[in-house]
């Protein structure tokens, strides 16, 4: 146990807040029992914050639901014990269980919008908790208001009278947290509480949780797939893999010096420390998570582990106690030396020549949607250039217009009048139906969600073959040859050709989508969050693939992502969008190093980093305003922490070059924008 928390020490003798012993949980699916948790054991000490990480499907939520005894109907605890504050949860009767839930344990989960009852006012929902403790209605309401105030809701009385859908996602999650903490629980379970929220909102919510953790002496079980978030929030971490705890230890130690090949691999997948594509490829973890209920002899991870040998495959490793930490690897000492799964040599960098004519150029690109009688100004006056072979990263909060921009370029939606899109200097018609086959061919896209992007009724062969036939006009006889060339280029085994998307993993699907996008030899590929639906291990492989393809085929990318780390890794230049406006545009390194636009700065500081350093810098207050009525002047003034004064409200600042090729839309002088403090992410990193 890490005795770092000051509120902990004196209770050391008391039982752990949560103790899980040899927990086996299985789901029954169509008559088959699928075991998803295997002999899971861990403890959360009093006042401790324990993080549980793992890729999607490894059983994190199942742990959480088992603790509160709310498994799905088909789920069952088959063995093991769950002790909450020393009491065996699984042995409790209905009434006791209810009492326990009402007093000792609470839970906050993903998607706060759905966690709140849509037809009850917020106040009533929060007050309910107090009513349950026997308080009269009036008092309960008062307490509820007080509780809302504690989660930093500015105007509790007005929020109490609203319905959940009238609150933003961040507010909703605050309300959920308020309800959870209202009982002053011994244990608070947070199951991906910030997944799905924007980075800026996530940072706020995480700050709040960190603060409240100090106020309420609550133990926390924090579940996330995001290593950085865990690093920021937790004292100790358990790494879950296929329902098994494969490594456990203090946060710092574990992330700095992982002792299980899986943890090592996960950490290597992330584009960390300012790593960029020309620094070399990201490492990946080959293979896939075993499906739930799979019969595994030996080490579960052996299949994907470069260290694994016959012994690993035959003998299941115990959880080796490494003194204050543990690893379920026979060769835990050697774990950090895990050979790379992917050679790190960077693809030959392409020299981008910005003297020549840009391959794509937009001028005053704007889009106004009509939604329910309102004009939604999704995008205004975007002027951009994209040169051959380069990657333009596009970042911004949700709703800032990234996807709109992508779709405008592709012609899937028509730009407002006066907008200009030029391809190789020639004007590009706004609508795809009016573009020539060559123009259509030149711009392709890789979508965020491959499930949506691939027609589930068609085979891989048809999916790519049709693109070849239509775009590349490959005559039928040569098609198979070309097809194989493509699938091999995206490293898709030939046997997948006859398969339909649903039989492929997320990563493989995205490869198919990429192959399809490249089938017509496009000049420009728009990547709209191509990895955000994927697990980190797969994300790395896709990023590598994109970088390789760019190097060999000299395509240009417009790369959209929420994840600044990813954008930084892949992009040559970065454009920052806010409320449909271009706020900043410049070479990736300069945008990260600064000077930045206050908005960019806020985005950067919202990113939690793996080293767990708490970035107490700029937090954006409030929500992104509605695109129906954008604020006057500088659209960012309503949330800007460095607002100058009325000039910001009245005048839209121009896009001014702060340095060569780096423009910022702000009234503040460029040199004033340069802050002394170091950027949240170290600018330069040693190539590993």
């Amino acid at each position, binding site marked *: 146990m890490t005795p770092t928390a000051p509120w902990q020490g004196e209770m050391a003798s008391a039982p752990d807040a949560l103790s899980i012993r040899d927990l086996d949980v299985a789901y029954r699916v169509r008559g088959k029992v699928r075991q998803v948790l295997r002999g899971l054991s861990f403890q959360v000490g009093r006042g401790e914050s324990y993080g549980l990480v793992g890729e999607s499907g490894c059983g994190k939520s199942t742990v959480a639901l088992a603790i509160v005894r709310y498994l799905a109907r088909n789920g069952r605890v088959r063995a093991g014990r769950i002790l909450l504050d020393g009491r065996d949860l699984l042995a409790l009767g209905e009434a006791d269980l209810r009492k326990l839930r009402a007093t000792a344990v609470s839970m906050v*989960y993903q998607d706060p919008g759905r966690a709140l009852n849509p*037809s009850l006012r917020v106040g009533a929902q929060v007050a309910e908790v107090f009513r349950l403790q026997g308080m009269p209605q009036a008092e309960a309401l008062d307490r509820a208001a007080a509780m809302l105030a504690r989660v930093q809701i500015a105007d509790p009385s007005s929020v109490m009278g609203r319905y959940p859908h009238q609150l933003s996602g961040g507010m909703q999650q605050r309300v959920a947290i308020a309800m959870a903490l209202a009982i002053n629980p011994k244990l608070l379970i947070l199951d991906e509480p910030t997944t799905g929220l924007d980075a800026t909102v996530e940072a706020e919510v995480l700050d709040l949780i960190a603060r409240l953790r100090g106020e309420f002496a609550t133990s926390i079980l924090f579940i996330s797939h995001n290593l950085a978030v865990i690093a920021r929030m937790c004292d100790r971490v358990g790494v879950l893999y296929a329902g098994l705890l494969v490594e456990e230890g203090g946060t710092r130690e574990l992330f700095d010096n992982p002792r299980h090949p899986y943890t090592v691999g996960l950490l290597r997948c992330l584009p960390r420390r300012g790593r960029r594509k020309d620094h070399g490829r990201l490492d990946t973890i080959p293979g896939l998570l075993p499906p739930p209920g799979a019969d595994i002899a030996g080490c579960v991870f052996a299949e994907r582990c470069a260290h694994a040998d016959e012994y690993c495959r035959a003998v299941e490793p115990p959880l080796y106690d490494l003194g204050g930490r543990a690893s379920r690897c026979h060769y835990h000492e050697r774990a950090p030396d895990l050979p790379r799964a992917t050679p790190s040599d960077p693809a030959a960098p392409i020299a981008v020549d910005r003297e020549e004519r840009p391959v794509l150029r937009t001028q005053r690109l704007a889009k106004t949607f009509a939604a329910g009688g309102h004009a939604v100004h999704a995008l205004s006056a975007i002027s951009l250039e994209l040169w051959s072979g380069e990657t333009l990263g596009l970042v911004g909060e949700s709703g800032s217009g990234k996807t709109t921009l992508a779709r405008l370029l592709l012609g899937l939606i028509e730009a407002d009048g006066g907008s200009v899109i030029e391809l190789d200097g020639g004007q590009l018609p706004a609508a795809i139906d009016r573009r020539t086959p060559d123009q259509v061919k030149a711009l392709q896209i890789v979508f965020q969600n491959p499930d949506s992007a691939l027609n589930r009724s068609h085979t891989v062969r048809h999916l790519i073959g049709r693109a070849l036939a239509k775009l590349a006009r490959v005559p039928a006889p040569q098609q198979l040859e070309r097809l194989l060339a493509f699938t091999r280029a995206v490293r898709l085994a030939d046997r997948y050709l006859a398969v339909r998307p649903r039989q492929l993993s997320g990563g493989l699907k995205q490869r198919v989508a990429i192959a399809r996008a490249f089938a017509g030899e496009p000049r420009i590929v728009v990547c709209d969050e191509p990895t955000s639906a994927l697990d980190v291990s797969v994300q790395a492989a896709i990023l590598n693939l994109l970088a390789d393809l760019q190097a060999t085929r000299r395509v240009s990318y417009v790369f959209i992502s929420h994840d600044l780390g990813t954008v930084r890794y892949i992009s040559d230049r970065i454009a920052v969008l806010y409320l449909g406006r271009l706020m900043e545009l410049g070479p990736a390194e300069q945008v990260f190093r600064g000077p930045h636009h206050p908005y960019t700065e806020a985005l950067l500081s919202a990113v939690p980093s793996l080293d767990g350093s708490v970035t107490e810098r700029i937090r954006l207050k409030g929500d992104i305003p509605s695109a129906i009525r954008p604020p006057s002047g500088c659209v960012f003034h309503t949330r800007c922490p460095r607002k100058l004064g009325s000039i910001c409200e009245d005048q839209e600042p121009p896009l001014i070059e702060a340095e060569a090729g780096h423009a910022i839309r702000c009234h503040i002088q460029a040199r004033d924008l340069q802050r002394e403090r170091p950027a949240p992410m170290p600018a330069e990193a040693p190539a590993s």
Partner: protein
Amino acid sequence: MSTLRAIPRRLLLSLITLWILSVIVFIGAQLLPGDVGRAILGPLADPRAVANLNHELGVDRPLLVQYWSWISHFATGDMGMSYTMRAPIAPFIATALGNSLKLAAVAFVLVVPLAIFGGVIAALNVGRPLDRIITVLGLSATVVPEFVSGIVLILIFGVWLRVLPINANWPPDAGPLTQVYYLLLPSLPLFLVLFGYIARMARAGTVEALDADYTRTAVLKGLPPRTVLWRHVLRNALLPTITVIATQVGYLIGGLVVVEVLFHYQGIGSLIYVAARSKDFPTLEAGVLTVGIIYTVATLAADVLTSMLNPRVRLGAAA
């Protein structure tokens, strides 16, 4: 955009719908009867009489003129003259509608609470035998045509047990209770058909609400099951059921045709049926359009009710 503000638009759309409906009905009724007079007077009537009648009825005028005269009168409550009854139609429609509403009311009063109860019970036992039983029985009841269930019910209650009258027409001096007594048997086939629909909806809504995250929140708060059910589950679960019930009003009228014929009840259904049999097109048109209006009004009312009860819709999505 809030739905309450959208009501005028919704109303306008309903009006357009009704207008299209009136055109369809009119065209439908004009499609065949090449010779209305002949249809009325019968095959053996004298041609002179037929020509006279056609002129008198105005069916020898251009279609557009006929449509306009029909619909403009209809809008003022004048539904025209029945071909066969040679009398204004409106009073017939009014009486028939009143009768049908009585019958429908009895069926609804019986079915709504029971079906919702059944659906909720099934949902609470989802996957268990009780759920299967309620679901399969409900489904079976729903899909068996009214005349089939009606016959069987007549056989059982009217003929073998002799406990319920098999003819819906109560004696002239019957009080409300006696009327209900006479309407019990006819309302049963309607009950059966509606039961399945409503129970199914209630079940689906409840199952969904039971699985919803907000229910999880409520349970994990430690609320007693009863509170969870009433405050959190049913409140959300039964909202869609309202709409279903409203659309069933329209369906019900279709069922009324058969039930009213079977039980010799003088409602809107049998009025339409008789008009259809005797090719009394003005009455048929008026009856059908009336049904359309009722349906449209019922769904409109349900929409408004739903949006008034549902804060999501009433207050609009998050700003």
